[in-house]
């Protein structure tokens, strides 16, 4: 069933002024997809990072975004999250989805503890600070009072994800989330992602990664980004062919 669209800002629990008045938001209409990006372009000075990129993601899909370094994965995710603005093009998402974006960096205050970062995030989002059960589910309760910069890279990454997931988002944009995680944490994270985007909530997850061996089993679909465009999509050519093309390009 087509869902009503509002402004991009409605992805968060409350309106986000950061995204208001952005010229790339389409006027309210209806689409079948949870996310739709049309003719999105972005350049940094002379470097054209995204070129008229088109992308559609359906409800409930967990999509892996592949591409060599510099292909435009991070820029695309930043644009979809609203942190960056495209030079041209439009982005639409279903209004009821709650955005959760995790980039390469923790996006949290390294000098503060996990608990303090969670308290800040909760205050900004207008939700209650997650309690012991939530921290236990990330196996971080014992580390809640330690400054993030004192944690190992893997724990820091898990703590950052715990902050990102604090408001139970179901529109997930994750940039190499498995980079510092052990196998157990990866399985736990993707079980959580599947739970977040599944069911009647109808969310989606777009995950940029180079970690094919560990993440491919979780994927519903795989996209390959080359030279700022979607060069291959498993929807039309099959997951094996997209992966083979990606691996071929990386040789």
């Amino acid at each position, binding site marked *: 069933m087509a869902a009503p669209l509002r402004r991009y800002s409605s992805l968060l629990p409350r309106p986000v002024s950061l995204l208001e008045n952005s010229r790339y938001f389409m006027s309210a209409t209806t689409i079948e997809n949870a996310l739709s990006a049309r003719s999105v372009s972005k350049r940094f000075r002379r470097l054209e990072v995204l070129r008229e990129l088109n992308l559609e993601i359906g409800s409930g899909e967990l999509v892996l975004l592949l591409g060599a370094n510099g292909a435009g994965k991070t820029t695309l995710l930043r644009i979809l999250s609203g942190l960056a*603005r495209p030079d041209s093009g439009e982005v639409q998402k279903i209004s009821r989805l709650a955005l959760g974006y995790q980039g390469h960096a923790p996006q949290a205050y390294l000098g503060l503890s996990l608990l303090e970062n969670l308290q*800040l995030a909760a205050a*900004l989002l207008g939700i209650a600070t997650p309690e012991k059960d939530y921290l236990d589910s990330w196996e971080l309760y014992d580390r809640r009072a330690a400054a993030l910069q004192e944690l190992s890279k893997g724990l820091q990454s898990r703590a950052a994800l715990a902050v990102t997931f604090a408001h139970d988002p179901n529109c997930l944009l994750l940039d190499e989330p498995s980079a510092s995680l052990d196998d157990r944490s990866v399985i736990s994270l993707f079980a959580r992602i599947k739970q977040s985007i599944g069911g009647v909530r109808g969310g989606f997850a777009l995950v940029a990664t180079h970690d094919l061996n560990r993440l491919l089993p979780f994927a519903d679909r795989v996209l390959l980004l080359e030279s700022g465009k979607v060069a291959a999509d498993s929807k039309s050519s099959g997951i094996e062919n997209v992966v083979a093309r990606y691996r071929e390009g990386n040789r």
Partner: protein
Amino acid sequence: MRSILALLRKDLLNELRHREVLSLLVGLAILVALILAIGINGAFISPEAVRKLYPALIWVVSVLICTISIGKSFEYEAAGQAIDGVLLRLDQVWQLFLAKVISNYAVVAVGHFTAMLMLALFFDVPLTVFSVPMVVVALLVLWGYAALATLISALTVRSSLRSMLLPLLLLPLLFPLLFGAIELSSVIMLGSSPQGVSHWLALVIGLDLLYSVCGLLLFEHAVRD
């Protein structure tokens, strides 16, 4: 309001945890005042002339040390791209600007009054220099300074050259505010003709408003890619 208080708490916690900004500020205030005192004493300038220089020296030292310290305070935002996390969750981006201005205002006030005290001690200026009009002028000027410095810091926060860009962009834009600050401080301290005081005061208040409004309107554009 809840968001602004949460952001202020975050700045306070960061500072209490590291004590980097205030330590840097107070340390620089003492050092720069000491170096100036040694230099000026060596030049055999009369105490009366030193007192005349005092208003200008306060603001030069204050702006120098506060600019270095504000640059440091934005390193918390840049480290780990923490500012992105805030932007993703914040209701209105101007709330972040306002919270940063308030916390920077507190920081520069500490820096300014420390510099005033150190210069007064080293130059043998009576502590009556901390008069109500002098403090009011300082607080007015420092608000404009904090607003402009916060905006420029936000513009440079994603640049690898931010420590260099901040003073290069900030100091020329601060010139009219500093001019007003020095003139007003001179009139108050030296008791010279109060002619034109209202104009300088109007300039300072006008610039406070201008920098604040510009910050509120432009901050969001400054922090986005």
